């Protein structure tokens, strides 16, 4: 029993020096946010930023279950709103910081032509990768497909993936034939090819929102300010994100 307690105390003891922030972020932010966090650490010696990426919906559920997160960067503002309503996120800290768009990607060896939305119905497209509707990109993709009246027809060809990047990885590896993914994600791979972008007029509004969780480390606020600043903006724009 003593070993139990000693072990648990050792493992759960906070770091002995400097501030440590845990930032949970939509996985589509992976590359620019990693660069932003490194710059923030360089500018704030002694501060360490731990990044955890996943589906925004999964991260929100973890925050709700008591995960020790300081900031949350969501690909869907409604997830942040819900945390605010539950008293888990601080509304005053919440800000929009980027926008994204949808594109349709095809597997590298796909032989079926995929040039417009109705091509998704062709029998050559056997598997379409898509996360559950709770995951932001899954919801955005479904909204667009439903708007085009394609969703019901392709539903049974959907293979469910974990999050935005896993959707892209499924197509890049050829395990799925096509997917609706973020434009920024499509740029990160040489595997999956962009078949066509979702037309501007049909794009659902995709806004990235950052917030500070209520029990956050005081350094969280500085990190959020840095995220809204010019240097962070350059990283986000280089990755293909648009200004909010």
């Amino acid at each position, binding site marked *: 029993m003593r*070993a139990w307690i000693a072990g648990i105390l050792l*493992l759960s003891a906070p770091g002995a020096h400097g501030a440590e922030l845990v930032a949970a972020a939509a996985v589509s932010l992976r590359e620019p946010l990693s660069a932003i966090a490194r710059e923030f650490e360089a500018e704030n010696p002694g501060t360490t930023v731990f990044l955890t990426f*996943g589906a925004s919906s999964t991260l929100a559920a973890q925050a709700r279950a008591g*995960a020790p997160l300081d900031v949350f960067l969501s690909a869907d503002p409604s997830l942040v709103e819900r945390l605010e309503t539950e008293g888990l996120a601080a509304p005053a800290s919440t800000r929009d910081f980027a926008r994204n768009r949808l594109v349709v990607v095809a597997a590298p060896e796909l032989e079926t032509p995929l040039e417009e939305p109705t091509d998704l119905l062709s029998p050559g497209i056997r598997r379409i990768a898509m996360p559950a509707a709770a995951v932001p990109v899954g919801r955005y993709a479904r909204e667009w497909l439903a708007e085009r009246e394609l969703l019901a027809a392709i539903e049974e060809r959907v293979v469910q993936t974990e999050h935005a990047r896993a959707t892209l990885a499924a197509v890049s590896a050829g395990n799925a034939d096509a997917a609706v993914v973020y434009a920024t994600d499509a740029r990160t791979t040489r595997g999956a090819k962009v078949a066509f972008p979702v037309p501007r007029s049909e794009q659902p509004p995709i806004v990235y929102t950052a917030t500070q969780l209520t029990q956050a480390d005081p350094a969280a606020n500085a990190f959020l300010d840095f995220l809204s600043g010019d240097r962070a903006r350059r990283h986000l724009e280089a990755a293909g994100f648009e200004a909010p």
Partner: protein
Amino acid sequence: MNDADVFGIAGLTLWIGAIATVAVVPIAVAVAWSLVRHDFPGKSLVRALVTLPMVLPPVAVGLGLLWLLGRRGPFSALWEATGIDLVFTAGAAAVAAAVVGFPLATRACEQAFASVDVRYEQVARSLGLSPSATFFRVTLPLAKRGVLYGALLCFTRAIGEFGATAVVAGIIPGRTETLALGIWSRVQLGENSAAAVLGAVSFALGLAAMWAGERWLRSDPP
């Protein structure tokens, strides 16, 4: 992925496995000894309960632990009062690893104690040794190899734990990301070569541990 990441992940995994094993083995020894040397009502039910974490889906174990350790569970007042907040920490990963490793350790200890001839214990008692002295100076030394083998099984199971850990500890790089969790998150990201590096480390650790076990702890002729 750089070498520091690989060492960090492997180090955290071994550390969690070690904590879990050190915590579990004394309990496993006690439970196994009571099961082997004592008869009591409901013994078969206790045996079944001991084995349960081995046969339940690990994610179900994780769900249960999340409830027990969480802020909305039955012990929330206790966690509040003591300031212990394990959920989504390496401590939670160690608890998950301990729970799934427990049946393996207990089963191995049971076999070890069952193979100790009761007559040695009776002789020790007849020569005036107290029950606890008999246990520590006669039974335990005779069962040592089996108990250590159980500890090793518990450790290897603990360092490979995935399902329960992912639920109760999350996957926070640098904090709770063990080898198994790191492989999963990299496969999800399409980073198959990084996943393969972590897979190779898992393979090497598992093989080394089991080989050591076969060589030094099971070399007895049956």
